[in-house]
């Protein structure tokens, strides 16, 4: 059991962006990602997951701080203005 300090980046954004965001994340060098379907409310209004409003996805990426920083920067620049987007990071111990 060797625990490795890593960063967990959690991204909440619009379902419609799933393919695009996954492409961005992988092409920036992530080793993997985990997605769950979500709904929620923020500054862009309620996204209840009904079809005409669209729902949210919650993407988690475990990686080093540099990778997470790159992803954050890219998503902020490209999507924050026009789409619902929330990102936060937490330090985690990767157990592998």
């Amino acid at each position: 059991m060797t625990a490795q300090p890593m960063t967990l980046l959690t991204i909440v954004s619009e379902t419609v962006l799933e393919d695009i965001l996954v492409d961005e994340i992988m092409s920036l060098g992530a080793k993997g990602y985990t997605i769950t379907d979500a709904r929620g409310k923020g500054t862009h209004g309620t996204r209840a997951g009904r079809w005409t409003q669209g729902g949210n996805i919650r993407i988690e990426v475990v990686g080093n701080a540099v990778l997470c920083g790159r992803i954050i920067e890219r998503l902020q620049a490209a999507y924050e203005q026009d789409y619902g987007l929330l990102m936060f990071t937490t330090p985690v111990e990767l157990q592998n």
Partner: protein
Amino acid sequence: MHFEPVVLFFMLGVFAGLVRSDLKIPASIYEALSIFLLLAIGLQGGVKLAEFSLLELVVPALLILAVGSLIPVLVFPVLRLLGRMTRADSASIAAHYGSVSVVTFSVGVALLIQEDIDFEGYMIVFLVLLEIPALVIGVMLARFGSGHVRWGKLVHEVFFGKSILLLAGGLVIGFIAGAEGIKPLDILFFDLFKGILALFLLEMGLVAAARIAGLRSYGLFLVSFAIITPLLSGILGTVLGWMLGLSVGGTMLLATLYASASYIAAPAAMRIAVPKANPALSIGAALGITFPFNIFLGIPIYFWMAQFIHSF
């Protein structure tokens, strides 16, 4: 006035939405219902298409497409200048109104069947074709403002998006298999069609309720726009249908196609291709106003118009 009981389910849905009932059609069921409707409509069209010579259809098809493509082009300056909307919003709304609504069309077909009036089965082909120029024109209209457009993604979405794919796929299967080959599927895709349309309208009512409740915030302009545009487009369709020598049923369906606004394919395509557009405006108008207007008043009016013009 011709009344089609299936719209009562829409009213039940709106009621449930307005009183904030916990009634919800699960997303996966909604998906399944819409896959069913698209496939069924496509199959029905394909079977009927087999009765026509494709060559004969080329000229009317091109005309119907060309005139249909006028709608977003004409609508855009109205939104931009009269409505003082942003370029992105105007373009996105134009695309929604140039595009078509499968459910509105289905309610029109249901009415014709109930009234026992024949129509040209190949009208369903235009349900497929009209979507395409509308979305492309919408994006082109938006483009000058927004700079960067994901054309690749858009073209993919337009041609291989599930709506077009299922409609066109059903069309081809129905065409190849023919009435005889499709027979064992009839009970699912034809006999159950109206019942499933009823369930779909229930869900449409539920989501429309949220839009209807937000009407005030859209302003008088958008509300009037969402009622006048289908009427004018419907007249366009009626006149063209009559000129092309379509039957009363076919004329009414063409009017319905022109008059209907998309709330499935267009919103998804525009959210990606024109991100600066506010989806609440376009979906609100298309689903909250135009859709109920069409199924309650529009379709009976287009029917009356088709009968009227054919009396000459």
